[in-house]
C-alpha cells in the first residue's frame, strides 16, 4: 500500500501544488457569488440559480480533475518516469491504482472546495443551508470515483488525445443516456450511470432523500470503480511499455 500511496502522492502532489487550480476555484466561487445577485433577472429565484451554478461548477471541476489523469499517465509513459517507477518493486496494477487514487484525491479536493465556498456564500446570504443541498454536493463528490476510473481505463489503452476525448464523451453519455436505462444490467453495470449522482433538481426544490441513498451510491461507485480499474489493470499488464 505504501507503493500505491507513493504513486498517488506523485499525482496529487503535482496538481494540488498548481496555483492555477486555486485561481480557478476562486473563479468558481466568484460565479456563485455573482449568481446570488441575479434577483431581478431571475424574478427572485436567484437562490435556485446560485445552487444550480455551484452544482454545475462542482461537476465541471470533477470532470476537469479526472481529465488530468488522461494526460498524466501517457506523459509518464512517454517521458520515462513510469518506467523508472515500474522498475521498482511496484506492480503495474499497483501503479495504475496509485494513479487512480491520486486523481480521486484531486477531484475530491476540488469539489469539496467548491462546495465549501457555496456553503459559506449561502450561509452569508440566506442563512443556514438545507441538508439536502449538502447531500447533493456529496453525491457530486462521490461521482469523482467512477469518473476517475473511466479516465484511467481509456488512458491505459489509448493515447492522450483519444483518451481525453473518449473520457469526456463517456462521462457526457453516462449522465445523459437514460434511453438505455431499461437495459438494467447494462446501464450501471457496464456502462456507468452517472445520473445516479444527479440529484440537483431535487436538492434545489427541497425534495428530501435519505442518507441511505448516498450510502448505496457510494457503494456502487466503489464497486464500479474497482471493476473498471481491474479491467484497466488487465489491459495495462499486457501492454508493452516504453
Amino acid at each position: 500500500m505504501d507503493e500505491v500511496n507513493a504513486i498517488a502522492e506523485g499525482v496529487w502532489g503535482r496538481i494540488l501544488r498548481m496555483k492555477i487550480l486555486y485561481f480557478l476555484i476562486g473563479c468558481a466561487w466568484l460565479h456563485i457569488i455573482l449568481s446570488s445577485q441575479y434577483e431581478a433577472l431571475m424574478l427572485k429565484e436567484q437562490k435556485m440559480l446560485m445552487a444550480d451554478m455551484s452544482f454545475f461548477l462542482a461537476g465541471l471541476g470533477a470532470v476537469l480533475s479526472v481529465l488530468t489523469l488522461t494526460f498524466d499517465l501517457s506523459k509518464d509513459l512517454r517521458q520515462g518516469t513510469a518506467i523508472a517507477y515500474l522498475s521498482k518493486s511496484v506492480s503495474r496494477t499497483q501503479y495504475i491504482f496509485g494513479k487512480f487514487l491520486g486523481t480521486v484525491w484531486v477531484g475530491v479536493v476540488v469539489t469539496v472546495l467548491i462546495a465549501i465556498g457555496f456553503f459559506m456564500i449561502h450561509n452569508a446570504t440566506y442563512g443556514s443551508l438545507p441538508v439536502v443541498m449538502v447531500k447533493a454536493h456529496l453525491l457530486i463528490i462521490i461521482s469523482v470515483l467512477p469518473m476517475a476510473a473511466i479516465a484511467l481505463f481509456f488512458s491505459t489503452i489509448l493515447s492522450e488525445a483519444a483518451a481525453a476525448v473518449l473520457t469526456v464523451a463517456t462521462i457526457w453519455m453516462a449522465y445523459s443516456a437514460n434511453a438505455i436505462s431499461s437495459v438494467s444490467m447494462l446501464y450501471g453495470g457496464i456502462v456507468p450511470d452517472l445520473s445516479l449522482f444527479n440529484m440537483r433538481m431535487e436538492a434545489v426544490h427541497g425534495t428530501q432523500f435519505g442518507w441511505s441513498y448516498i450510502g448505496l451510491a457510494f457503494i456502487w461507485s466503489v464497486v464500479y470503480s474497482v471493476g473498471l480499474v481491474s479491467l484497466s489493470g488487465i489491459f495495462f499488464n499486457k501492454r508493452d511499455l516504453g
Partner: protein
Amino acid sequence: MDSNKKLIVTFICCFVIAGVLAIKLNRVQHQVSPTRKLVDNLPVAGSQKLLADIQWMQFIQYIGRQKTLDKSSAANVEKRLNNIIDLDPDFAKVYYDGALVLMNDNPDGALKVLEKGMLHPIIGRNWRLYMLAGHILIQGERANRHAHLPINYNRVKRAALYFKKAMNCADSQNYVVNQWLQAEAFNASETASHLTQLQTMLRLYKKHLTDMQDNENEMSTGIFGKYDTQEFIDKMISEALELRQESENQKGLKALLDEVVLTVFPNQEIDPYTLRPYPAGFRFSPQTGKPLKVHGVCKHCGRVLKGPFCWYDGTDNVAEWNKSKH
C-alpha cells in the same frame, strides 16, 4: 491465482454487483423523485437544471422586451415555457407566472401550461393553478356573452370543475367558492344573474341537507366539510338581500326568498328585513327599527318565556313555548 486471473474475476464480480446496485438505486431514485421521468433527456451531461434557469432568465428578458404579444410571440412564449418545464418540471413558478403572461394573448397556451402543472404530484396540489385555469376559461365565455357571441358551455363546465378542484385543495381561499358558484350559475343559465346564483346556492344547500340525512354518522365533505356551514348560510342570506335590493319586484323573487329562509331557518320567526331569525321577546328589528311579530312571550304579562309556564305569574304558555322553541 495468476494476478491477471484475479483481475478478471474481480472485474466480472464487480460489474455484476454494480449492475444489481444500479437497478436498486434507479428504483429508489424514481421513488424519491417521481417527476424525474418528466425531465427531458437532453444530452446535456445532467445540467438540465442550470439550463432551465438560463432559459428562465432569457424568458424574462424576452417578455420584458415585448410591448405586446402578437400571435407569433405568444406562440414563442408558450414554446419557451414548455422548454423550461421539460428541463425542470419541479419549477413551480413557471406554470403560474407563465400562464399569467399568456392568458390574455394565448389563453389556450396558458391552459396547456397550467394543465401540465396539474399533472405534477406536488405542484398539482396548488389551488392557484386551478383557480387561474377556471378564470381563463370563464373569462373568455363572459367576454363572448358580453359581445353577444355564442358561448361554449363545455368551457364553462370545465371552469366550474377547475374551481371545484381549487376549493378542494388544502389551503385555498374562501373566495374560490364565489368563483365556483358563479361558474355553476353561468353553466345553469345564460344570464348567470344573482337570481340564478341564489337558486344554485339553494339547490346545493338542499343537496347538502339530503347528504347529511343519508350519512348521519359521517362528517360532511365537499364545501361544507371545508367551509363552515354557517359561512355558507351567511353567504346565501347576503346574496338574497343583495338580490332583493337590486330587483325587489323581480318575478319569482319573493317565492325564492321565502324558500331560502324556510330551508335555512325552518320553524323560526324571521325578521323580514334581515331575513334572519330574531330572539324571543323582540318587538322591533335592531337593524331597521321596524316592528316585528313578537314570539316566545307570556300571553298574560308579556314577559319572555323561559319554560312552558310563565316564570312571573305561572300562566300556562305551553303552546307558545312549543311553537317558539328550536
